């Protein structure tokens, strides 16, 4: 199939081609899903370059395991679960790289109104996320950035539902406490 035809094809068809080893089809899947995956990794890592590397690793793992994908329609959720797993493995392997001690974090700048503050708000949220423990961070990001339900997070992480709920609640509470005094949290 030509790149133009691939670009217009339904994702399930592109996934089916990629499962058969079609590299162009897989490149099309990368093209479609890179935004989601890189954004997820950026939220989780804080460091942009490291996030890019982990996002690439997640895609490479997906390529390796593509034959195990049961349903082509579930590609997005399956890919996200692989990405979460890649990040959690990294968090276990080199926790220092993903968790920054609070003392090393600068205080967030007070925010004023206006679009120019978006970059600063993004930075503050990123710093606040880095303060969370790995399980809290992944649960909060999946809930608030990816819009997943508790059940979907439990599926993506493989953790019990109760653990997910408490991680989301605790993480959100800590984020609120950290962001509220600076004024960028409540509108």
């Amino acid at each position: 199939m030509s790149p133009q035809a691939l670009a217009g094809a339904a994702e399930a068809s592109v996934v089916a081609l990629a499962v058969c080893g079609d590299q162009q089809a897989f490149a099309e899947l990368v093209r479609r899903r890179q935004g989601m995956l890189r954004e997820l990794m950026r939220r989780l890592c804080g460091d942009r370059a490291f996030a890019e590397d982990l996002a690439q690793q997640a895609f490479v793992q997906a390529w390796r395991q593509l034959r195990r994908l049961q349903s082509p329609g579930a590609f997005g959720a399956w890919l996200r679960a692989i990405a979460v797993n890649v990040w959690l493995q990294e968090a276990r392997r080199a926790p220092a790289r993903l968790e920054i001690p609070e003392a090393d974090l600068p205080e967030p700048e007070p925010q004023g109104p206006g679009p120019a503050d978006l970059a600063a708000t993004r930075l503050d949220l990123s710093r606040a996320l880095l303060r969370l423990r790995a399980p809290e961070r992944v649960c909060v990001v999946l809930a608030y950035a990816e819009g997943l339900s508790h059940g979907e997070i439990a599926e993506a992480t493989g953790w019990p539902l109760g653990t997910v709920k408490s991680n989301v609640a605790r993480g959100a509470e800590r984020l609120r406490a950290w962001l509220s005094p600076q004024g960028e949290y409540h509108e």
Partner: protein
Amino acid sequence: MSDPFDPDLRRLFAATAEHPADEAFVAAVTVRTSRERWITLIARALVGALVLAVAAAAFGVVMAQGVKVIAPLLNASLAGQATGLVLAIAGLVCLRLLAPLALRRT
């Protein structure tokens, strides 16, 4: 059903979302998956070669043992020659039956 998540935090995450799209990223992943594909092909070829080598060695041993049994029979008598011939044909039939299975595995 009510939303169990904090709407203010949800808004904050939505407002700070980025959706990067970059062909260089796609190219980088493609390079890594191509490399991966080559490594897999080479690994499979090596495993295949190893299996063939082991199979060839086993075949050599079997042939050597078979000749030890069959050769004296061929020199003994007419009945011995017939027995030797039957054993040789049986060996060939076994090879014919087993070869596709072995090839399918590699």
